[in-house]
């Protein structure tokens, strides 16, 4: 072509979405690395440091040397953009719901959520409070841990349960193939949790 980078220059024109789809089909279909993707994701579930409530103490104890949840391949990390799991620790207040949702939206897919403690299931002792929301109204939760607070062993168990779910149901490879998560509905909050902040 003339005028594009001088002599011998070329411009490739094509549909990027189409070629990306083709490449995906090649990798996930012909080469069959889906199983490896599931396996790899199951052993690198990194929860984000987002301590919503008092269960955060048990969260800290889970990763302490005694219980050592890092042996399951889970490492708490500070940046939401480098993590793929969110561990909701206890009550979520109305203001914290905004932080949870914003963090969830920043995390790259495939991503998972574990809700910890009685408050995260249905309010716990704050069941009739004016200032809480249920976490399952904000983000899709995979595993619930009952207890007030749950023992660190229970938290480690939940991580293992999530790993088992990912590997048995092939959640991640299906997610990548489909482009969205097939076995879980997309949760959109009924009312904007950040409305107080946006004004």
């Amino acid at each position, binding site marked *: 072509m003339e005028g594009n980078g001088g002599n011998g220059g070329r411009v490739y024109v094509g549909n990027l979405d189409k070629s990306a789809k083709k490449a995906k089909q090649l990798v996930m279909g012909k080469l069959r690395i889906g199983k490896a993707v599931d396996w790899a994701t199951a052993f690198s579930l990194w929860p984000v440091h987002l301590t919503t409530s008092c269960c955060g103490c048990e969260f800290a104890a889970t990763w302490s040397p005694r219980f050592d949840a890092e042996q399951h391949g889970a490492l708490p990390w500070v940046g939401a953009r480098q993590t793929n799991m969110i561990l909701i620790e206890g009550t979520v207040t*109305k*203001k914290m719901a905004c932080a949870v949702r914003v963090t969830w939206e920043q995390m790259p897919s495939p991503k998972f959520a574990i809700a910890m403690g009685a408050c995260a299931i249905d309010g716990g002792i704050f*069941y*009739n409070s*004016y*200032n809480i929301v249920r976490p399952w109204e904000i983000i899709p939760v995979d595993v619930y841990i009952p207890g007030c607070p749950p023992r660190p062993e229970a938290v480690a168990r939940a991580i293992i349960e999530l790993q088992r779910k990912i590997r048995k149901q092939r959640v991640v490879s299906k997610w990548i193939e489909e482009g969205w998560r097939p076995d879980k509905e997309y949760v959109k909050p009924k009312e904007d949790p950040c*409305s*107080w902040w946006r004004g």
Partner: protein
Amino acid sequence: MDLAQARKIVEEALSGIEARVEEGRGFIEFIVSKENLVEAASRLKKAGFDHVKSLTVVDYKAEGKFKIVYYVSSYLNEDLAGVIVGIGTEVPRDNPKMPTLVYVWRSAEFQEREVFEFFGIDFEDHPDLRLLLLTPQVAEKRPLRKDFIVKEEPIIRTTPPTG
């Protein structure tokens, strides 16, 4: 120093200001009128009480008033550091306005903001009277007032009530 000695010091400091004393086991409160509150507080500060430990509000719905008490103590004066005394006032429930004590004790600032959002008490001349913990939708219900009813789980009685 015990509470009786502290009471003497406070009464000396508040001489000339009419104050109602409420005393119980381990606490003492001086309730003054709304107009005299800033004057009384600055006199207490001169006497050595240099910070607010906590700020409480009680909603007396039947009597139609709020009782606001600042619990003050001292860091620098070692004698006074062991005691906590209360200095407070009462405001009507339908028009809860009172002067701020931020300019006397700086540590009252955030506690007054919290009282503002939970009870709707308006602190005049407060430098930064914004919401602190609640969202605007919740705060406008004034959730710690007595007429804010929280729905409770029904409790089934197995034995008849006594007394």
